[in-house]
C-alpha cells in the first residue's frame, strides 16, 4: 500500500514538471493559435540559464530560487523578443506558417546553446535544503519531489488568478475565445500577443529551471520534451491551463504505474493516451470546440496557364538532359529531391485543397519504404513489383487512421495524425524480431537494370513526376473540388448532398498512397530503411517543405522540397550549420511570408510595368 502511495507521489512530481511546460504552450496557442515548436528550446534555455545563474549567485536558498525565477524571466524576455522580431511579421500568413518560423528558432537556439555552454552534459546543483529524502509510510520520497508537487498547483493557482482577476487575464481569455472581437474592441493585439508570449515562455523557462536538480542539462533537452509537451497540451485542451494540469497528472500517473506492469510502455504511452482521448473527446479533456473563424485560410488553386505549362516542359527537358553533364552525386541529390517533392506534394494535397494539417505524414512515407523492404527481405520480391504494391500498404494504414482523424479538425486533427504516426513508429521500433527495430532493414537495392545511379535517377524522375502530375490533376477533378468544398464549408456540401467527411477521408487515403510511393522510391535509392523514416523529424521535414514553398500554390511543395533539400545539403558542410540554416529559414520566413512561391510571384508582379488606368 505504502509502495503504491509513494509511486503515486512520484507520478505527481513528474506531472508538475510536465504541467509547467505544457501550460505555457497552452496559453500561447490559446491566444495566438501559433504552434510553437520553439517551446522546447525555451525550456532548455531555462535550464541552462538557471545553472549559470545558480553557479554565479551566492550559495543557499536565495541563490537557487533566485536563479530559478531570474532564469524564467530572462527566457520570457527572449520569447517576447522572438515574437516581436520574427512572429509578428507572419501573423497574416496561412495558419501554420508560423510553425516554420519557430522551427527556424529551434535550429538557431540549438547551435547558440552549444556555442555558449559547450557540448558536455551539465549536472546542476541540487536545491539547498531539499536534497534528501523523507520517509512517508516507510518509503523514501525525495524532498524535492514534494516541493515540485507543491509548486505545480501553486503555479496553476497563480495563472488562474491572473486570468480571472486581472485585466490582462480577461483580455487573454477573450482573445482565446474570439480574437477578432477583441481587436474590434480596440485592444492592441500586438502587445497582447507579445505579453502572452512572454508569459508562456516564462512558464517554459520556469519548467526548465526547476528541472535542474532532477535532470542533467543537455543539448537534447529541447527535442526530448517538445513532443510530450504538445501531447499534454492537446490532451488537456488547447488554451486550457487546468486541462494541461489534469492531462499532465493523467499521463504521468499512467506512466508511473504502467512501467510496473509493462516497462516498455513508456515508449508510446503519452501518444496512446492522446489518441484515446481525442477519439472520445475531440477537443481534449477541458477544451472548447474550435470555431472556424471567418478568416480561415482557403486558397484557390488554378490550373497551369500556357506559360506555366511551357515552363514545366522546359524543366522536364532540363531534368531529362541533366545526366549528360551533371556529376553522379548531383543525380543522387536530385533523386532525393524528387522523393521529397512527391512526399511534400502528397502532404500538400490534404493541407492545401483538403485543409487538413497532418503532423504524422511520415507514417505513410515510412510504411511505403518498410513494405518494400520487408517484401524484398522476406519474400525476395523484385523492385518493380514492390514499387507498384507498397503504396497500397501505406494507403491501407491511411484508410484506418484516416477514419479516426477526419472526424476532428484543426490542431486536434493534426495531433491525432501525430499520435497515429507515433503508434506506427513504436510498433515498428519495438517489434524488432520482424522489422529489425532500430537496426533497420538493409540490402534493399534496385534491380540490376536500375542499379546504377543514372538509371535510378530516370526511374525516380518518371515515377515521382507522374505521381506529382497525378496529384495535380486530381486537384482539378470533381473529387478535388469536392475536397475543397469540404474544407470551405461542410454545411454547403451537405446542402448539395455530398458527404464532406467522405471526401476528406478519401483525400487522406490518396495522400497516404502517394506518400507511400515516395517512400518506396526512397528505400531503393538509399538501400536501407530505419524507424527514423516514420518518426516525427521526418514529418516535420515534410511540413517545413510544404510551408516554406507556400501553401497557396500547387507548385509550392515542389519548390519547398527542392529548396530545403539543397539548403540542408550545402549548409550542413559548414560549422554551426544549424545556426546558419535556422537564420536562412527565418530570413525566408520574414521576407517571404507567403512562402517562396507566393513571395516570388509577388516580387514578379511588382517588377511588371504598371498597366495604364484609363
Amino acid at each position: 500500500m505504502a509502495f503504491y502511495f509513494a509511486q503515486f507521489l512520484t507520478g505527481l512530481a513528474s506531472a508538475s514538471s510536465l504541467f509547467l511546460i505544457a501550460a505555457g504552450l497552452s496559453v500561447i496557442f490559446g491566444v495566438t493559435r501559433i504552434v510553437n515548436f520553439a517551446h522546447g528550446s525555451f525550456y532548455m534555455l531555462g535550464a541552462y540559464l538557471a545553472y549559470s545563474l545558480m553557479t554565479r549567485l551566492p550559495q543557499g536558498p536565495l541563490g537557487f530560487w533566485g536563479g530559478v525565477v531570474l532564469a524564467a524571466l530572462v527566457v520570457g524576455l527572449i520569447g517576447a523578443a522572438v515574437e516581436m522580431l520574427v512572429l509578428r511579421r507572419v501573423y497574416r500568413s496561412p495558419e501554420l506558417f508560423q510553425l516554420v518560423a519557430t522551427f527556424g528558432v529551434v535550429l538557431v537556439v540549438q547551435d547558440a546553446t552549444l556555442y555558449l555552454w559547450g557540448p558536455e552534459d551539465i549536472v546542476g546543483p541540487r536545491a539547498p535544503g531539499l536534497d534528501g529524502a523523507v520517509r512517508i509510510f516507510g518509503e523514501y520520497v525525495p524532498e524535492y519531489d514534494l516541493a515540485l508537487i507543491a509548486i505545480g498547483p501553486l503555479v496553476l493557482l497563480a495563472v488562474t488568478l491572473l486570468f480571472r482577476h486581472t485585466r490582462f487575464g480577461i483580455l487573454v481569455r477573450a482573445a482565446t475565445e474570439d480574437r477578432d472581437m477583441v481587436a474590434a474592441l480596440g485592444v492592441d493585439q500586438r502587445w497582447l500577443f507579445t505579453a502572452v508570449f512572454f508569459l508562456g515562455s516564462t512558464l517554459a523557462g520556469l519548467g526548465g529551471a526547476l528541472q535542474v536538480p532532477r535532470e542533467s542539462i543537455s543539448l537534447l533537452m529541447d527535442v526530448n520534451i517538445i513532443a510530450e509537451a504538445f501531447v499534454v497540451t492537446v490532451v488537456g485542451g488547447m488554451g486550457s491551463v487546468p486541462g494541461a494540469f489534469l492531462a499532465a497528472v493523467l499521463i504521468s500517473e499512467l506512466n508511473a504505474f504502467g512501467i510496473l506492469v509493462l516497462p516498455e510502455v513508456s515508449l508510446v504511452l503519452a501518444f496512446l493516451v492522446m489518441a484515446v482521448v481525442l477519439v472520445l473527446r475531440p477537443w481534449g479533456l477541458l477544451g472548447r470546440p474550435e470555431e472556424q473563424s471567418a478568416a480561415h485560410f482557403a486558397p484557390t488553386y488554378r490550373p497551369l496557364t500556357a506559360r506555366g505549362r511551357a515552363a514545366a516542359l522546359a524543366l522536364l527537358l532540363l531534368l531529362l538532359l541533366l545526366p549528360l553533364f551533371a556529376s553522379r552525386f548531383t543525380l543522387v541529390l536530385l533523386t532525393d529531391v524528387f522523393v521529397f517533392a512527391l512526399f511534400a506534394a502528397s502532404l500538400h494535397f490534404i493541407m492545401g485543397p483538403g485543409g487538413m494539417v497532418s503532423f504524422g505524414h511520415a507514417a505513410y512515407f515510412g510504411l511505403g519504404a518498410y513494405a518494400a523492404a520487408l517484401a524484398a527481405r522476406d519474400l525476395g520480391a523484385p523492385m518493380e513489383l514492390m514499387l507498384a504494391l507498397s503504396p497500397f500498404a501505406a494507403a491501407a494504414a491511411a484508410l484506418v487512421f484516416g477514419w479516426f482523424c477526419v472526424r476532428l479538425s484543426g490542431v486536434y486533427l493534426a495531433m491525432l495524425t501525430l499520435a497515429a504516426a507515433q503508434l506506427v513508429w513504436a510498433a515498428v521500433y519495438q517489434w524488432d524480431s520482424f522489422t529489425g527495430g532500430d537496426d533497420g532493414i538493409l540490402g534493399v537495392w534496385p534491380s540490376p537494370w536500375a542499379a546504377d545511379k543514372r538509371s535510378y535517377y530516370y526511374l525516380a524522375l518518371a515515377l515521382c513526376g507522374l505521381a506529382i502530375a497525378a496529384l495535380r490533376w486530381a486537384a482539378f477533378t470533381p473529387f478535388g473540388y469536392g475536397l475543397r468544398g469540404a474544407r470551405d464549408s461542410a454545411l454547403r456540401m451537405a446542402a448539395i448532398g455530398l458527404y464532406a467527411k467522405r471526401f476528406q477521408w478519401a483525400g487522406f487515403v490518396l495522400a497516404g498512397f502517394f506518400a507511400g510511393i515516395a517512400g518506396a522510391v526512397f528505400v531503393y535509392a538509399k538501400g536501407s530503411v530505419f524507424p527514423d523514416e516514420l518518426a516525427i523529424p521526418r514529418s516535420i521535414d515534410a511540413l517545413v517543405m510544404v510551408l516554406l514553398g507556400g501553401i497557396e500554390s500547387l507548385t509550392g511543395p515542389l519548390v519547398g522540397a527542392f529548396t530545403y533539400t539543397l539548403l540542408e545539403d550545402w549548409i550542413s558542410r559548414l560549422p554551426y550549420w544549424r545556426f546558419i540554416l535556422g537564420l536562412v529559414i527565418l530570413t525566408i520566413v520574414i521576407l517571404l511570408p507567403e512562402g517562396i512561391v507566393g513571395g516570388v510571384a509577388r516580387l514578379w508582379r511588382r517588377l511588371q510595368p504598371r498597366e495604364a488606368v484609363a
Partner: protein
Amino acid sequence: MSRWWMMAALALTLAVGARLAAAGEIRIGEINSYSRLPAFTEPYRKGWTLAVEEINGAGGIGGDELVVISRDDGGKPANAVKIAEELVHSEGVVMLAGTFFSHVGLAVTDFAKHNRILFLAAEPLSDAIVWSKGNRYTFRLRPSTYMQSAMLAREVAKLAARRWATIAPNYAYGKDAVKAFRQVLGALRPEVEWVAEQWPPLFKIDAGATVRALEAADPEGIYNVTFGGDLAKFVREGKLRGLFEGRTVASLLTGEPEYLDPLGTEAPEGWIVTGYPWYAIETPAHKAFVEKYMQRWGEPPRTGSLVGYMTFLSIGELLKRAPARDSETLVDTLEGMELDTPVGRIRFREIDHQSTMGAWVGRTAIRDGKPVMVDWYYADGADYLPPDEVVRKLRPAD
C-alpha cells in the same frame, strides 16, 4: 579555433570543386554525427586530426599527403548514405571511416557492401555491424556491446549477487547489452535469477518511477545500460531512494570521462564499470599519446579522442602496408592486420573484421572531488569474444 579554419578550407575546396584527387594525395572520407553528439565527436575530431597531422608530419604515406574529408550526417542514416555517395564518387576517397550511431553505422555498412568500398566503423557499438549484418568491406574498431557486456558479466560473476535486475534504454543497443550480459553471466553462474527489467525510452527516463519499480523487486545486483542524461537522472533518483545501498551495480560505459565527469561529486562509488581512466594508465605508449594530445589541444583526452586517434592510426598503417590502394587490396591487407596503438597491440580479426581493442574495467570512486575509476585493469578485446564456431554462424553466409 583551428577547426573553424579547417572547415572553412574544406568548404572552400568543395565550392571550388576539386573533384579529382590531386597528385600526391590520398583521400579518406569521414562521416560522423558532429552536430548531434558534440560531447563525443569534438574530442573524436581532435583525436583523428592529431593522428593525421602525425602521419603527414612523418612524410605521409609514401610521400603522399593524407587528406581527410569530414562531413556531418546530422544523425540521419539517409544523409550518411548520401554523403557516402558523394565522398566515394565525387571526392574520390579510397575508403570511408567514422559514424557513431548504430543505425547510421549500419546504413553505411550496407552502402560499403553494395559499392565495394572499405568502411572502418569507429564507434558504433551494434553487434550487427560485424555479425548479423557484417560483410567483407566493413571493419569495426571499438569493442562491441557484446564484448563490453561480457567484460562486466565476467567481473560480477566473481561476486555473490544472485538476483539481478537490468535497466537499459529501450532500443537495439540496450537490448543487445542486456542479452549479452544475461548470456555470459548465465553461462558462468547458472543459478542467477533475473528478477526485474526496466526499459526506459532513450533520453526520456522517468527516473523516480523506474527506480522504485526496480526497488520493488529487491534485487541483489543491478545491471545498468543507461548513459548520458538518463544515467545522471538514474544516479540522482537512485541515491535519493537508497536503491544502490548494499547492492552490486554493474554499469556499461559509465567509466568513460564523457559520462563520468559531468556527474562530479554526485558520481556513484563502487560501481563496476567499463571506461577509460586516461589519467592513470602508465604504459609508455599511452603516456606518449596523452602528452601529444595535451600539447596539441591543451586539454585532456577523452574516449572519443582515443577512438578518433586509433581509427586514423589504423588507416595510416593500412595505407602504408597495402601494396595498392583499391578496395579489394585494402580489405585483404586489413584482415588480420596488427598494429601498436596507445592501448597496446590490436588486431583486426579475419573472421568478423572486429578489432581486438579492449576497454578498461574498474570501480568508480571519488578522489579529490573528482569521479575516477580505481582498481582497474585493461580487458583485451580478444578475450571477450565468442568462440569462432559461434561467430561464423552469426555472420551471414558470404
